């Protein structure tokens, strides 16, 4: 963990906000607070933080909108806090650009673990193969750069790590569990929707036609693979 990593915590309930701040500070993070979506966006514009924690049930601009607005400005990891795991909220939040989610009430230690996983750098590729090519797709893991037909495309940190993970063994099928573990640090019981939505997001950026993916391919019942 980088000492002094700044977390922006967006939560309208003051008591929760304070308690979470205390607990996260105990874990060594620097915490900034915002009690509305507007304030969160202002704070982020003033000084972008390293991680954003958003409760999606916010008065005024809701968590999804805050998520989308921050995504337009930055590729920082976003963790959203939802009421329940089995609603459409999770998928909607992930599609709005969140990298991971937690359901209330969560343990701040669990949140810390999630944030640490999201802040991990993409796995360094083996020396020598620092330049990966998949047809019109070009990946330079060490520089964090992806180009399609020579044009640089912008990925979030998590999307990039997912792509690099798939690129580490071209043509190999990665199960959702494997990807959950390597990209998000989840064990067996991680939520497979994280992988599915991120693959979907990734396709809209790296594929010429996201509906008919050529690079990030689904292997039914098994998982995903990357091909030229």
């Amino acid at each position, binding site marked *: 963990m980088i000492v002094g990593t700044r977390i922006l915590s967006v939560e309208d*309930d003051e008591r929760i906000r304070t308690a979470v701040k205390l*607990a996260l500070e*105990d874990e060594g993070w620097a915490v900034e607070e915002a009690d509305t979506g507007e304030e969160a966006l202002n704070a982020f514009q003033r000084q972008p933080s390293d991680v954003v924690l958003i409760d999606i049930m916010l008065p005024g601009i809701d968590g999804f909108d805050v998520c989308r607005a921050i995504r337009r400005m930055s590729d920082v990891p976003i963790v959203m806090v939802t*009421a329940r795991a*089995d609603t459409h909220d999770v998928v909607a939040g992930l599609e709005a650009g969140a990298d991971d989610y937690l359901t209330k*009430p969560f*343990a701040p230690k669990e949140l810390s673990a999630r944030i640490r996983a999201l802040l991990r750098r993409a796995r360094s590729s083996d020396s020598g193969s620092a330049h990966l090519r998949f047809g019109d797709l070009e990946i330079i893991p060490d520089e964090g750069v992806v180009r399609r037909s020579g044009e640089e495309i912008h990925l979030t940190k998590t999307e990039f790590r997912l792509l690099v993970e798939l690129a580490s063994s071209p043509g190999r099928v990665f199960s959702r569990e494997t990807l959950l573990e390597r990209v998000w640090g989840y064990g067996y019981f991680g*939520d497979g929707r994280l992988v599915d939505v991120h693959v979907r997001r990734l396709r809209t950026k790296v594929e010429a036609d996201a509906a008919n993916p050529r690079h990030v391919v689904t292997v039914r019942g098994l998982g995903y693979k990357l091909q030229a």
Partner: protein
Amino acid sequence: MRLLRSLSRLLPRLGLRARITIAFAVGALIMAVVLAAATLGLTRQNLLDQRESSATARTYQNAATAALQLPEQTDADPASAVDPTDVLASIQTPTGSNPVLVVGDRWYARSPEFGEEALPAELRDTVRGGQPALMRFDHDGATQLAVGVPIESIDGAYFEVVSLGELEETLESISISLLAAALLSTLAGAAIGWWAARRVLRPLRGIGDAAHAIATGRLETRVEASTDADLAPLADSFNEMAVALEERIQRDARFASNVSHELRSPLMTLAASIEVMQNQRDDMPERARAALDLMAADIDRFQQLVADLLEISRFDAGVMYLDLEEVRVDELVLQAVQSSTDADVPVDIDSDLAGVLVKADKRRLSRVIANLLDNAAKYGDGATRVELRRRDDAVRIAVEDDGPGVPVDDREAIFHRFNRGSSAGHRRGIDGVGLGLSLVAEHIRLHGGSVWVEDRTDGEAGARFVIELPAEAS
């Protein structure tokens, strides 16, 4: 009377359709019988009147003929007297009609069968008394019509006896035809009744189907609005009831859901605050530390209870959706046990289960196994082993414990909410909230499987909770 009573006892047991059919058949029968009786009566009367009037007219005519042929009765010239037998022979009568002539006190009949003796005395007396008369009577089992006319000139009378046997035969064949018609119309009545009942009951069946659908949880079911003036109120009130029921159930479910949601916020504060305090645990005095541990444990319990309540309210609202995927059941069970609070329990897996898939919501099924392990820890002195076996098209996950077992009477109730079993509950204090097993039952039901508790198969005391899940074809 007895018949009626037993009939009325039988009728309510018959279905509405049968009763309508019977009512139509009985109605048709009664109508046919009344019509037949009226027809028969009228026909009979008509035919009789006809016969009587023709017989009467003929009798008068023949009497006049006879009176002309027979001179006034004088004893003056017996030789010149005309023989009444000849007169009788000359009278024209249709077949089946027997003329009888009385001259003075002497009776002449064409047929010996119908002579003085055959005629009823009453008729004879009336006619001899000077009154024409008509009478029906039985003779040798056949109905006869006799008409008598007095002939004053010879101090006699003329009778004609007409057999009505032919008429009876005609009436008999008419009544047979009418009986057949009555039977046919009864059958037709029954058929119409059956058809009408079917038509009447068809919308009721629709309502019955809708009620069944609602009972099985499809609360949004409605019956189609009817354009029939008689059926529309029924359909409308049914739909009103369905709406009210749905609203009521949703309100209840929403209430439970709202309560649980409202509890999440304070719980979130508690969960974060207790962590801050736990970070300072080592610096706390002994007593504060003990209090902190108690609080931490109960916050965990509280969280679990709220999560369970929310889950239950989702079942009640019918909005529980599983995140189903095909998973290897052996891996799932191993992972579930390893991530539970009871990770050292031996897991005994059938070797032919390798690679067998089940359609399951991984996290919920693991919660189910964790609940069974928790249950074993609380009421069964801890789980002794977890067993996974293949059974035809299903897999069975069993959790065994070392406790006293579950009495046969409690084996069903133990899966009900807030029920810890009558004997097991107080053995180890009141830990746990009694929602765990009911959630197990609901989740397994949603997975298309079943769960029950039985005795341990090795004969030792202790409970054996078994989950059976359908296996995917592999």
